């Protein structure tokens, strides 16, 4: 049974401030909603009007094309930091230059008597180094009187009363004689002449700092200059006689020259350079470094069985004590299963003083615990709704759940394999799917999708657990964990080493399934309603939750007094409490918090803190290396090393 909405408001109010009388709250909330809605509507209206004003569909289509093409060509460019050129700049041009057609068409409007009447225009932005290879094209719409046109590049501040190439830090290919000008008044013979109807392209290679031009899709070969392109050059075009008109293509249209093919060559070059990086005599060192990285990664995340198997296979040492790994594994499992309260208890028991020294972490955990209470998964609220005294006794280890590992193996395999790329082995979609499935099973046992495991489970819930699985009866909390390990080891032996992640992923997945199951199953027992309910729909649990909320509020205030205001904490608390404002917290704007995925962040924070307290690295070296590599690539872009665009870390992560 869903709580009446007023009651929910009351809950929220009660949490935030006990002094506000309940009967006023509804009006207040409605007022709040109305204000928000009105402001939202106004904003939408403004947006709509705005898009209507600029709403030339052809233009917006071209705009879309442009964005798509630029994203595809220059994936490494962060446009917030370094925007790409998209048009000529109306501000950065000589007065003899006229612009039209969204600042893409350039025409000459001076006298054109001699070279003193030359005029240029630069693009709005310089070429970002992260492009690696940059390309733009210019179509000669009309060669005008004499066709003295120059296409090329120039730096900010180069005189615009000139053709590109004549002055220092500018480069140009000229149509009248086909010469290439490199920061000099005298050109070098370079290519053919060009005239009306020709499409001239300019390609900047920021990897080897060269540049070449193209004519009608044909590369004319490297410019004469070698490795002397200065950084931050702007696409530039210059005209000199009346009637000259050119159109730029910065990616608005497909290029005549196959630039992507050219890029693919360089991508292949750089990848093979990385692949063939010489390691010389240190081959053995490298192998052990890599093995240590893998091993430490496994240990860090508490994949104990896999780590042991790996160390056996590779004959590497594991720094950390096995029980310590298992302890961490247990705590992590609890967090990932949403049983944060237990996780906190376990941490305090196993690592006394840890949370006291990390008030921020404690606060985060408590906040999460509150969220899990809403979810109905935290033990503090779950205990209220569990009917069978047996299972209450067996809590918190839930030994009756452990044997199901074997029974659900087939199922685990499939879900695990479905989500091999997710670092924690759990993908949201899968979770939703299985969640729904389980809901269905427990509400209507006739569901055709019922898998053996779920049938087993409903049995074990309704009957004595001893009947369903013989050895579960004898297991207590301690052995249950080790049994899990045995299962896991057996499992990991069955699969190859490389799929260790999958195994571990599903492992957790299973834990989550158990948690979900029990809450839902209990909910069904209470009032045959199949939908998820606040705190599992139990009144006592709800009261406990509100009480816990108050404690949390108090903790927050205490922390505030001790350490000063903390915006993050405030936001966290607000978000958590906001859940109560909705009749269906799972489908509300802040409902994201209830997603089991959200447990992962806090889980890894807690894990890192524990490791740190044991004088172990809080980050696995593998992640450090990965982070460093990513950072390096970004740094390369900033120091204008073009190869960064083809050496992206995610190209190597599969």
């Amino acid at each position, binding site marked *: 049974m869903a709580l009446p909405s007023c009651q929910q408001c009351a809950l929220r109010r009660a949490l935030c401030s006990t002094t506000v009388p309940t009967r006023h709250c509804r009006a207040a909330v409605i007022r709040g909603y109305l204000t928000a809605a009105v402001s939202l509507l106004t904003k939408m209206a403004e947006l709509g009007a705005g898009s209507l004003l600029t709403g030339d569909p052809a233009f917006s289509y071209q705009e879309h094309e442009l964005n798509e093409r630029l994203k595809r060509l220059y994936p490494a460019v962060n446009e917030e930091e370094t925007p790409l050129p998209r048009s000529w700049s109306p501000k950065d041009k000589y007065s003899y230059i006229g612009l039209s057609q969204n600042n893409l068409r350039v025409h000459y409007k001076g006298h054109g008597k001699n070279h003193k009447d030359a005029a240029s225009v630069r693009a709005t932005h310089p070429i970002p180094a992260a492009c690696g290879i940059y390309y733009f094209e210019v179509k000669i719409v009309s060669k005008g009187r004499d066709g003295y046109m120059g296409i090329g590049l120039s730096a900010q501040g180069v005189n615009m009363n000139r053709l590109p190439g004549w002055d220092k830090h500018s480069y140009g290919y000229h149509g009248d004689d086909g010469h290439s000008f490199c920061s000099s008044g005298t050109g070098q013979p370079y290519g053919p002449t060009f005239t009306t109807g020709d499409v001239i392209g300019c390609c900047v290679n920021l990897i080897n700092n060269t540049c070449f031009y193209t004519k009608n899709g044909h590369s004319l070969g490297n410019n004469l200059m070698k490795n002397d392109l200065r950084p931050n050059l702007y696409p530039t075009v210059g005209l000199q006689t009346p009637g000259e008109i050119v159109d730029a293509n910065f990616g608005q249209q497909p290029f005549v020259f*196959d630039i992507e093919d050219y890029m693919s060559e360089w*991508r292949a070059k750089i990848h093979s350079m990385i692949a063939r990086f010489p390691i010389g005599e240190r081959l053995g060192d490298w192998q052990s470094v890599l093995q240590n990285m893998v091993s430490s990664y496994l240990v860090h995340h508490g994949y104990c069985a896999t780590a042991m198997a790996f160390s056996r296979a590779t004959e590497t040492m594991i720094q950390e004590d096995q029980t310590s790994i298992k302890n961490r594994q247990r705590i992590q499992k609890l967090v990932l299963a949403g049983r944060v309260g237990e996780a906190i208890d376990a941490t305090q028991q196993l690592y006394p003083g840890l949370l006291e020294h990390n008030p921020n972490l404690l606060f985060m955990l408590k906040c999460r615990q509150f969220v899990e209470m809403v979810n109905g998964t935290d033990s503090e609220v779950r205990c209220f709704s569990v009917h069978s005294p047996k299972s209450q006794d067996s809590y918190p280890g839930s030994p009756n759940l452990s044997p199901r590992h074997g029974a659900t193996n087939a199922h685990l395999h499939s879900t695990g394999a479905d989500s091999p790329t997710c670092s924690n082995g759990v993908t949201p979609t899968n979770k939703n799917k299985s969640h729904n499935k389980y809901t269905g099973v427990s509400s209507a046992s006739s569901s055709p999708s019922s898998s053996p495991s779920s049938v087993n489970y409903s049995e074990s819930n309704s009957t004595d657990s001893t009947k369903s699985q013989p050895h579960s009866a004898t297991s207590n909390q301690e052995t249950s964990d080790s049994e899990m390990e045995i299962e896991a080891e057996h499992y990991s032996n069955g699969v190859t080493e490389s799929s260790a992640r999958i195994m571990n992923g599903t492992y957790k997945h299973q834990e989550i399934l158990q948690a979900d199951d029990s809450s839902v199953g209990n909910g069904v027992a209470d009032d045959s309603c199949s939908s998820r309910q606040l705190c599992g729909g139990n009144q006592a649990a709800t009261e406990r939750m509100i009480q816990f909320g108050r404690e949390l509020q108090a903790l927050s205030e205490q922390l505030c007094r001790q350490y000063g205001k903390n915006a993050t904490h405030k936001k966290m608390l607000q978000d958590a409490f906001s859940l109560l404002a909705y009749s269906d917290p799972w489908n509300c704007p802040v409902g994201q918090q209830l997603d089991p995925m959200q447990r992962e962040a806090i889980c890894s924070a807690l894990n890192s803190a524990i490791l740190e307290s044991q004088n172990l690295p809080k980050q696995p070296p593998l992640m450090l290396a990965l982070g460093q590599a990513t950072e390096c690539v970004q740094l390369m872009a900033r120091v204008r090393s073009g190869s960064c665009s083809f050496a992206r870390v995610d190209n190597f992560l599969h």
Partner: protein
Amino acid sequence: MKNAVIGNNKQKANLIVLGAVPRLLYLLQQSSSSLELRTECAVVLGSLAMGTENNIKSLVDCHIIPALLQGLLCSDLIFIEACLRCLRTVFISPVTPVQLLYTDPTVIPHLMSLLSRSRHTKEYITQIFAHCCKTPEHQTVLFNHSAIQNIAPLLISPSDKVRMQALKCFSVLAYENTQVSMTLVNVLVDGEQLSQVFVRMMQRDKPIEMQLTAAKCLTYMCRAGAIRTDDNCIILKTLPCLVRMCSKERLLEERVEGAETLAYLMEPDVELQRIASFTDHLVSMLADYFKYPSSVSAITDIKRLDHDLKHAHELRQAAFKLYASLGSNDEDIRKKITETENMMDRIVSGLSESSIKVRLAAVRCLHSLSRSVQQLRTSFHDHAVWKPLMKLLQNAPDEVLVMASSTLCNLLLEFSPSKEPILDSGVIELLCSLTQSDSPALRVNGIWALMNMAFQADQKVKVEIVRALGTEQLFRLLSDPDTNVLMKTLGLLRNLLSTRPHIDQIMSSHGKQIMQAVTLILEGEHSIEVKEQTLCILANIADGNTAKELIMTNDDMLQKIKYYMGHSNVKLQLAATFCISNLIWNEEDGSQERQDKLKDMGFVDILHKLTQASDPNLCDRAKTAMQQYLA
């Protein structure tokens, strides 16, 4: 045995000497032996074949090929694969005669049927085909056994090796073969046109060998007329890809193949030549082909020097070929080539290189450049290219001679400053001997050069030509089956018979034979061009002082002229009228008598009629002739 011979050429040779091969073959062919044993035999034989060329020879001498081909009839896939692997190794060796694959007509269809059995059968069989398709007959055999339909799907095989071998098959099948090329353009692979599949294989991130071979396929299809030269897949893909293959970054072998293929691709198309000439600085890029072995490699690395030396000839000839192709039509490109660093020096030294391939390519390049009036006048003369050219002509195989003599034709043109020194070097005898060659191309070039030489030449030169050639040879050439030879011989006669003193002198000594020859040609079945040329000769004769009489006294000849004045072809009418006009010209001795005689023969009426002709030239010519009577 297997383990003993792997990777050990000495052991392999020992085993062969000890006579292991016949024994192995015997075991292989015994159907009573177990499959494992037979397979092992094939494996050992395959290993032996991996050794030196001598090993292969011994194996082939032991009739290994029929035995292995027989083995393919077995149903066991592993055994078949072992046989195919060995066959592959034997057939890709240059010492194996490829004809052995085609002796038994059932072999090819059987191989086609085995093709799809496994990844290995695909790889080995396509590799065998790619190496054993050397002649148009081989192409036809494979084509008739549906090679295209069977191999096309392999182009999208997941295995790189299979894709590569399939691609090579297509390149050898399509080479100069219109039938195959025309079929290829219509083949679809997985719903995609074959040319598009090839274009994808030319992408720059593909292996170089694949890019190059795909470009070859498209080149051959284009040259066979199956793809237009202005098709985007040629202009924007194949051509740039081949230019890339010529770049310094490629291996020497790749650069050679790239340049040769590119030369072949653009040979007939001036637009492709223009595009290539400005793509990636190709003209100056090719100059690097002459820098092997480089001075650096000689000192630092013996291995490298050896490698460079081996390829130096190939590189040079490929560059010459490509230059020849680039410069065959466009004057600007020729200029660009001759302006390349040391280009003329390189050609000159190339003409006297020991390698025939290089000499031939160099002379082809020179020939291509000699089509430029400007270059003939400048760089050709400055570098005295005629000297090595003349030397080359002394003693060379026919294919070199054809090119060299053709180049010589251009060098002997009237405006060429090289003409004089060449004349002094005794070229006439040489050219005359060429006209006696069995090759029509050489005869044409010889007589053509003589024709060019005789144009506006001194009396002395003309007499020398007639003397050296001899009237007998001249008449033989006038009855040559090759029209080109006939035309150039008539051209030579015409050039000899110019300016009055020359005409009279030659006609006084050879008049009788020349008149005979002219009669013969005018009576014979010849094209309009030939007859026109002959009438022009007659007109030249009519221009002489004494020579005129040879015509005037020959009534038969006069009747012939009369006939051609009334011919339906304006060109012939014009030439005949010109002839009459010369005969009746005033201010010359005896013009009155000639006018009278011709009047009696009815020429005036014809001339009168021709003054009404629609053709303005003919009309003018007839009027001028009529005026001679009126004066």
